[in-house]
Every structure is written in C-alpha cells, then in structure tokens.
C-alpha cells in the first residue's frame, strides 16, 4: 500500500516535470503559479484539513513570507536563498505567535480571531508604507531573484524552482500525515476530548500544526515574491485567506494531493471564465455552489470515498 501511495505521488511529480515540455508557454507559467499557490493551500490543509482548524487568517502568514523575503531584499540586498529562508521562517514564526493567542479559542471564534489578526497585519503593512511601499508594493530587486547563480526570472528556472519547492512540500506533507504526529492531528480534528483523555495536549498539537502550516504559507509567499517579482499589500487582504480554503475544499480537505487539484481547477476555471465572459465571478460562484452540492468532500474526497479508499 505504501508503495502504491508513493508511486502515485511520484507519478504526479513526474507529470508536472513533463508538463513544461508539453504545455504552451502561457500554461507553463500558470502552472508555476499554481504549484506555488498549491504549497500555500497544502499548508492550509495541514491546519484545516487534517487538524480541523478553520482559519481565516492565512493571508497573514503568506504575506509574512512575501515581506519576510521581499523587505530584506529591498532594503539590505540579500540574495534569493537567504530571502527564501527568511520568508519561510517569518511565516512559521508569525503563525506560531498568532496561534499562541488564537488557539485559546475554537470554532467560529478561532475563525474570527485569525481574521482579525490578518486584518491587523494588512493594516500594519499599510501603516509602515515608508518601508513596505504600502498598497502599491514594489518589484523585488533582481539581486534577490536568483538561486545558485540562476536567474529566477527565466521561464525554465522559475518552473523548476516552483516544482522543486512543490515536490519538497508535498513529500514533507505526505511524510507528516503518515507519521504518528499526523495521526494525532487527525485525532484532534475528529475528537479533541478523547485525544486529551489519551494523554495528548491538544493545545501543543494544534500549535505545532499551525506553525507548520505557517511555514508552508511563508515559503509560498516568499517563493511567489521571488519567482514573480512583486510584493504588495493586496496579498495580505482577506481574499488571500479565503483562497486557500477554497482551493482545499475544492480539491478535497484532508488529502495530500487535494490542494494541488483544487488550486489548478480554481485557477483555470477563473482564467477560462474570464476569457469567455465578463461575468466570470458568476461562473466561479455557480461552480462553488455546485461543488458543495454534488461533491461536498471535494474532488479527491469524492474519489477517495467512491473508488480509492487508500488515498492519503
């Protein structure tokens, strides 16, 4: 069974590798975007899908990564590798700090508290506009847009970097959810009381899960800034908290590949709809409603339920 799981995920990675040679160039770049956003969604899935933490504040952690990488690059000229690591850490640290407070609440209150934190973060970016360039944002300097001497603005290098980050994130996620800790996370989601009685500390487990989730979001934010060359406050807005939720629910909460599927489906749905009609919001809206009605566990959730019980 483990072999089957591993084979499936490696096949997905191989397909993503091959895609860059097959797809037209527009979709290659789109796929690079999708992979980075899927890392974000994967992080969200660790908190929401596996641990049951419905956060509406993940834009804060994504933005932490984006600015954690972008600001040192802008003001101190740090290189790409350092910026990426700083972004990753910023996301994790902020998620940990927010979790310390927010995890004292649960359910809808948790949702609102995380939302308020994210809103405060967004306003903070605007408040320190002198350093962050506020709502306008800034193009990430070329010095930070290279890794090991390769320019990230080149299409091939960008795609490969996105793929590399995505692969690492996905394999780590797979390892995490199949580990002992992963099962404890799910236990928190299913029945917090019972797992407490079994001797686990729910607060510590959830805090760890949220911090890991923040690391993912931070990595994604940093990668987005470096690969696509722009950091701006709009990425800290509430819609970037809703997006990963949407991606995860579309693809299937609590599945390793769900975030990728959900991100890709939503990305292309929006893209195609906006090409066909100016009323593309309507198309997305109807799709969401239809999804909840006819595939409430998300696409992969449906597949797992019907055909492939072994899907992690």
């Amino acid at each position, binding site marked *: 069974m483990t072999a089957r799981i591993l084979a499936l995920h490696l096949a997905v990675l191989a397909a993503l590798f091959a895609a860059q040679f097959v797809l037209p160039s527009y979709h290659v770049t789109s796929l690079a975007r999708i992979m980075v956003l899927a890392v974000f969604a994967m992080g969200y899935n660790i908190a929401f899908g596996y641990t049951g933490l*419905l956060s509406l504040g993940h834009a804060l952690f994504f933005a932490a990564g984006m600015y954690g990488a972008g600001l040192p690059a802008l003001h101190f000229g740090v290189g790409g590798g350092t910026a990426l690591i700083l972004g990753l850490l910023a996301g994790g640290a902020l998620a940990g700090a927010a979790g310390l*407070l*927010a995890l*004292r*609440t*649960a359910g*809808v*209150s948790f*949702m*609102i*508290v995380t*939302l*308020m*934190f994210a*809103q*405060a973060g967004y*306003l*903070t970016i*605007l*408040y320190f506009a002198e350093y962050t360039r506020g709502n306008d944002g800034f193009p990430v300097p070329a010095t930070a847009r290279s890794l090991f001497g390769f320019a990230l603005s080149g299409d091939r290098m960008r795609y490969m970097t996105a793929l590399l980050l995505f692969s690492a994130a996905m394999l780590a996620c797979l390892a995490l959810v199949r580990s002992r800790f992963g099962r404890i996370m799910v236990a928190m989601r299913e029945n917090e009381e019972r797992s407490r009685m079994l001797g686990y500390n729910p607060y510590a487990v959830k805090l760890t899960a949220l911090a890991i989730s923040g690391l993912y979001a931070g990595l994604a934010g940093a990668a987005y800034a470096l690969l696509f060359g722009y950091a701006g406050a709009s990425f800290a807005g*509430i819609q970037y908290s*809703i997006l990963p*939720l*949407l991606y995860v*629910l579309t693809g299937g*909460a609590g599945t390793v590949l769900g975030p990728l599927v959900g991100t890709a489906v939503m990305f292309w749905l929006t893209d195609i709809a906006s090409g066909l009609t*100016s*009323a*593309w*919001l*309507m198309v*997305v*809206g*109807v*799709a*969401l*409603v239809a*999804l*909840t*009605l006819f595939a*409430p566990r998300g696409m992969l959730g449906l597949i797992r339920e019907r055909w492939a019980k072994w899907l992690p």
Partner: protein
Amino acid sequence: MSFGPFLLLALMEGMVMAAVLALTAVGLSLVFGTMRVVNVAHGEFFMLGAVIAWFVADHLGGAAWMNFAVALVVAPLVVAAIAVLADRLVLRRLNYEPEATIVATIGLLYILQQAALSLFGPDARPVPAPFELRLQLPWFGWSGYKVFVILAAGAILLAVWFLMTRTRAGLIMRATQIDRDTARAFGIDTDKVYALVFGLGAGLAALGAVLVVPIQQAHYLMGGDPLLLSFIVVIIGGLGSIRGTLVAALVIGLSDGVIAMFYTATLAKILATLLVALVLVFRPQGLFGAKA
C-alpha cells in the same frame, strides 16, 4: 477644534457607527444564533438592499421620502425572497453542515456580486435621504438624518427582541436553536423555521441597508465591510444574543471613534482590531454568551 467638541463629534460618529453595526449584525445574529450557519453572503444581502433602494429611487422618481418608504418595504421583501430561495435550493440540501455552508455562501457571494455588477454597474451611486436636515452646532455641522438612523436602529433592535422573546414565532425559533431534534419531535417544521429565519436575517440586512445607504452609497462591493464587522459584533456580543449584539455594536462603534482621536487613523484601526481580537481570545464566548 478644541477637545470638548472633538470628543462630542467622536462620540456622535461612534453612535452612528454603532447603529450601522447593529443594523447589519442583527440579522446575522438571528441566523447565526438559530441555525449555527456562517453566512458569508450576509454582506451581499446588505448590498442588495442598498442597490434596490437606489433602483427604487431612480425608477420611481417620486419625492425622496416616498421612494424611501417604498424601498423600506420592497427591499427587505425581495432580498428575503432571494434568501429563502437560496435556503431551499442550496443550504437545506447541505443539511447546514458548517464547512459546506461556508463554501456555498462564498459561491452565493460571488453570484450576488456579479449580478449586481452586471445589472447595476460598477459605480457608487447616491440615494437621497428621506429628508434633508442639517444640524448646525457651534463648532460643526451634522446630518440630521444620522440621528434618525440611530433611532431607527434602536427601534429595529427592540422589535427583534420583542419578536424573539414575546411571541410564539420567537419561542419556536428559540426552541429550534436550543435543540433542533426535540423541536422537531414536538411537531415543529424546522425546515420551515430555518427558511424563514434565513429570510428574516437577510431581510433585516436589507432593511438596515435602506436606512444606511443615504449616508453611504450603493456600490456592488459594499458588502465586504459590513460582513466583517457584523461577524465581529455577533461573536463579541455572544451568539444569538440581541442584547449582546447591541452592547458589542456600541463598544466597537464608540471605541473606534474615540481611539481615532488619539492616534493616526490607520494606527487606530490596527489597535481597535487587535483589541477586539483579544476580547475574543480572553472571553471566547463573547461578552454575553453563555459559557459553551
């Protein structure tokens, strides 16, 4: 401006904000309280109410107070009908499962927003107040209509409170809220109750919008702000507690107004936001909710 009038103005504006908050939140509080449904599209019902008020004013072309009176009746009815339809077609089929409802109402949000954009257009449009009255104080002038909004908000809250605590309908709603299965066992058609509550919540949002729109403007993106704020009010106030909603609206409205006096505006918003978050962290059941 010297400190006294400055404080007076901040308090008056804070009261208006509290009234607007209470108006947008009371419907959400009902829905949230009774159905435990997180309706992300609530702000869009508010927006629809404002847009309908504009259509009425624009197409009827009568006196401002007449248009206002018509909108006061038409907007809540139309919006409530849309909400009942959404409940029947979507929410009930989802069995009001929390996560599915969130996604479905996000979908609904997009649908309503796009419908407003397509039919109403992207511009912000003014709706005349039913009466033009400016209060000229020694230090500054103030819109007399704002006083009316405060009074109307109070009246509506009172009416909802009366409905919930003094009528049979309210009794049924509270019964359904406390224990849906038992209520059903006692012969209450809970499906019908849910549909009506959802419609009532949306209608109240629309009603609030008709009242508020003369001091703001109708715009297809205007639903985002009330949504956020009314969630905060409802949670801080405690689920389904009308009294809590009122107090929370006052606390948030006034603190927002007064904090803005001492700090630059953006910093004030940051502080107010964090303050609300911390209230929730240290009193998660809200100010007036029972301990969960």
